[in-house]
């Protein structure tokens, strides 16, 4: 006779007592949820004891449950250690989910439109609690994912794990590498800052080189959504980033992992005889069961890896955000994202089509078909001298090309522009122009010259006095009136006025006050840079002019003046006496050049120093 008009839990309570009935209910629920393991089974597993009942309940979730049906019930103990996998495949998968979760969080606050994308970033950073952390995590995770997926490929190559029967696994892995690269690249544009716009512009211009021209032009149009990247292009990159590429990534991750399981994880080359593939035949004493060993290990690594990422993002890493994207202003030293630097470097070798499209295509194509070309049986390192040498050569070549892709290599800018840039560039890649981090109070209004730094501290006053006299007397050609001359001071003043710098009290140089040591230090740096560039900026001096623009805003003007030297093929011509050859005007006098730049610094701008 049941308590209620129908059978219920209360009947159990009546029959067995409350405590026992509840325990049984819990036990039953747990067993249903885990698809086979009850509380006692879990307790035993976590204690490292063998299962106390048969059939082994720890294999039941693999057989009956959805989540574990794709994981093997046990692994070979030779491949559960750090070597040979280095956990790289697991880490890649981890990052796929990590990026998906952080990415979805960011999507909540992001609109893919040039009008609001950048202010959305500012909002995420300044108005969304934990917004900066999530963005940092997503960005760091993305960079790490590219690196780890690439390392995963390198590892697979060295252990020969791509060999029969795993050729296709390797192939899907290469597709995943490409998808990862494009995912990271498409995400680059979304903040709509200068870094994004120009890195992507460079990347997209490589696509433009695809032959024949009609294909390249249309591919370029297709991806950019117009001749220049604008609203359409941003939307396309966004959709690529959040829909198409992740969808492809999930599909190929599925295929890739399925193949891994079907063929079994390949063992270290030494652990099996040449030509043997024993991954699927694991002796009983070599079995490491997923439950509990691999599962606890994975959950532990989940915690440890996430902790590491959180620690890095809280203390050591900030995702870069530069100024708002501006198609009119090309920043000096623009490069593609680091994982595409090798293509940018290759482009400096010559033909855009060959080095930009065919060469990378060849490398990727060769890697894709490599398992089908390299049909040797042995996976042992000693038997694969050629393959390993070949692969190391590719790695070295790509590394060298990546270095060549840097702006430092082979891109010459006029030295005055370069020095101005070094002194004043806005924060980029965790670096900032030398003058910006000088404490606001030390930016004392005044007109300072690098002549001070080339004299000893005691002679500084005298040197500046002499310098004032010098520029008042030195006559230089008047750029406005052919054939007539003006004083150098007048010339500099005019150039500054063109830059809208009011000079009510003229241009009288003075020494840096003693309570502004950091300003003096940067003036010193300025002077040293000019000295180092003496071959091109011959007989040069520099000036730093600081003026109060608003109550909490200062304006810093930089001036470099030098004698113009002859330049051939981008290099200054040096005469027999070891001095550069000067350019002379009709009267045989050196051509004095003046170049200026300026920047504003607000009291609260909080530029960091690196």
């Amino acid at each position, binding site marked *: 006779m049941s308590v209620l008009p129908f059978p219920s839990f209360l009947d159990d309570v009546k029959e067995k007592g409350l405590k026992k009935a509840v325990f049984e209910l819990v036990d039953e629920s747990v067993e249903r949820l885990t698809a086979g393991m009850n509380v006692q089974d879990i307790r035993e597993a*976590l*204690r*490292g004891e063998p299962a106390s009942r048969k059939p082994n309940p720890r294999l039941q979730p693999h057989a009956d449950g959805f989540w574990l049906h794709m994981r093997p019930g046990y692994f070979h103990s030779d491949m559960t*250690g*750090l070597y040979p996998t280095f956990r790289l495949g697991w880490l890649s998968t981890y990052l796929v989910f990590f990026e998906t979760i952080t990415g979805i969080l960011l999507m909540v606050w992001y609109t893919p439109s040039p*009008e609001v994308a*950048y*202010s959305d970033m*500012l909002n995420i*950073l*300044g*108005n969304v*609690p*934990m917004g*900066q*952390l999530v963005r940092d995590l997503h960005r760091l995770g993305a960079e790490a994912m590219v690196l780890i997926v690439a390392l995963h490929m390198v590892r697979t190559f060295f252990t020969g794990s791509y060999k029969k029967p795993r050729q296709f696994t390797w192939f899907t892995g290469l597709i995943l590498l490409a998808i990862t690269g494009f995912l990271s690249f498409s995400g680059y544009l979304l903040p709509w800052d200068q870094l994004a716009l120009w890195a992507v512009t460079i990347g997209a211009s490589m696509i433009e080189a695809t032959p024949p021209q009609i294909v390249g032009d249309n591919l370029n149009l297709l991806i950019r959504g117009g001749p220049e990247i604008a609203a359409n292009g941003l939307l396309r990159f966004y959709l690529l980033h959040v829909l198409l590429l992740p969808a492809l990534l999930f599909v190929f991750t599925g295929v890739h992992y399925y193949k891994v399981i079907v063929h079994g994880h390949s063992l270290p080359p030494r652990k099996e005889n040449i030509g043997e593939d024993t991954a699927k035949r694991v002796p009983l004493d070599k079995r490491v069961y997923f439950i*509990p*060993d691999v599962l*606890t*290990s994975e*959950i*532990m690594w*989940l*915690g*440890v890896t*996430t*902790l590491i990422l*959180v*620690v890095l993002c*809280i203390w050591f890493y900030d995702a870069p955000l530069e*100024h*708002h994207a*501006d198609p009119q202003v090309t920043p000096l030293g623009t490069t593609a994202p680091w994982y595409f630097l090798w293509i940018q470097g290759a482009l400096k070798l010559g033909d855009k089509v060959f080095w930009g499209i065919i060469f990378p295509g060849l490398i990727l194509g060769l890697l894709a078909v490599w398992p089908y070309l390299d049909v040797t049986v042995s996976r042992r390192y000693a038997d694969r001298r050629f393959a390993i040498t070949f692969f190391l050569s590719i790695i070295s070549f790509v590394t060298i090309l990546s270095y060549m892709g840097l702006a430092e290599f082979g891109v010459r800018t006029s030295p005055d522009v370069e020095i101005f840039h070094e002194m004043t560039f806005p924060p980029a890649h965790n670096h900032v122009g030398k003058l910006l981090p000088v404490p606001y109070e030390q930016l004392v209004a005044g007109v300072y010259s690098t002549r001070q730094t080339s004299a000893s501290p005691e002679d500084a006053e005298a040197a500046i006095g002499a310098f004032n006299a010098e520029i008042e007397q030195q006559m230089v050609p008047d750029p406005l009136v052919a054939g007539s001359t003006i004083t150098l001071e007048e010339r500099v003043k005019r150039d500054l006025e063109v*830059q*809208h*710098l*009011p000079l009510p009290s003229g241009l009288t140089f003075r020494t840096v006050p003693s309570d502004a040591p950091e300003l003096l230090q940067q003036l010193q740096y300025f002077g040293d840079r000019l000295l180092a560039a003496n071959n091109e900026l011959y007989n040069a001096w520099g000036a730093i002019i600081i003026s109060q*623009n*608003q*109550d*909490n*805003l200062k*304006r810093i003007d930089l001036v470099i003046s030098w004698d113009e030297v002859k330049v051939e093929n981008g290099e200054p011509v040096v005469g027999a006496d070891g001095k550069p050859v000067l350019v002379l005007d009709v009267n045989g006098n050196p051509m004095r050049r003046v170049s200026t730049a*300026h*920047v*504003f*610094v*607000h*009291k*609260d*701008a*909080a530029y960091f120093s690196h």
Partner: protein
Amino acid sequence: MFERMLVGRIENRVTIGVLAFVGMMVLLGWAAINEGGRMQAFTKMEEARSIEQGAALFSINCSRCHGTDGRGLAGFGPGLNSPQFFGYDFFPEITKQINDLSAEKVGLNAEKSLSATTPERKTAIDARLVEIDTQIAELATQRNGQITAAVDNGYDPQRPIRLNNLGWVGTQEALIVTTLIHGRPTSINYWPNGAMPAWSQTAGGPLRMDQIQDLARYVQNWNKGDAWTLDDLFAVKQFAKEPVDGAPLMALIEQLQASGGVIPEPVGTDITAVIEQVASVTGDPVRGDQLYHNQVQSQLGQALACNGCHQQDVNGTGPMTKGTFFRVQNERVNDPLLKDYTPEHYLLESILMPGNYLVPGFQNAMLPNFGERITLQDLADLIAYIKTMDTP
């Protein structure tokens, strides 16, 4: 090896895993506690850098008219680094007293015009009105004497708040942003060096919205709140101008009201009626000359500037001024289309309805609104002046 030693045992893995998760939670909690301060610091920094960007944009784009120090340039652009722009009143007491007196004056005038008002009361009101005027004049003198330089420069201390003068009901930031977006269409009559163009790409200008925002922040960064000094006022090189100087017109209206006269009315465009009316008015060619050349305004306070298109000795947008009447007499009215037209009829119709007949070779470029901008007297004066242009 390291791994096997450390995490080979399940209890070590469980411990490390639990520690990692707990550590992460503690860290995230710690970060969450600090978020408020971090976000504030970021916003402050971001605003500061936005002002820097704005400063660079201002220097390139705006300083030519508004001055490198934002204090304006005479004839080019008004000062933005100005107490008037930010609505700071140096003499709030006096402003209030004058406003109260003016309000009283309006009330008394209204009372005076009521039929129920007794003659004795009217006399008392007149006496009080004189008293009020004297008081206002005294207060104004007392105040303006301290800021003569600024007043001479066009500063109206009685109307110190730019936003109010414009009738702007939004925030100051909104005014700056709106003005930057659309520019400020204006007349060369009071900004002879041209109008402020639209700056936003939305309105055909060069700047993006974020740059407009940077500029607005930079301009607002001049606001000193309550710390404005008279020196700041004197440093302003150009004060804001308002489209119509209503004072002379109001004086005229008051004068007419006082003398029992009528407020001038626009002449309208009913040509037949105007021909009849104008016959009874004597035109003054000298005033017509001044009207024509924009030296005086019409009785409706309008600048006509006929000479903007009708240049003296050479055909421009419109036929040249010289010989106008000669050509009307000898050429235009001989046109078969214009038979029955007297030269005067033709002239006034050409002014009021410029599209009706066109001199061959010229476009219909003249504004059709002169009927609304001039009075009968203005029309008569203009015709009188044009009639002096009777030699070829």
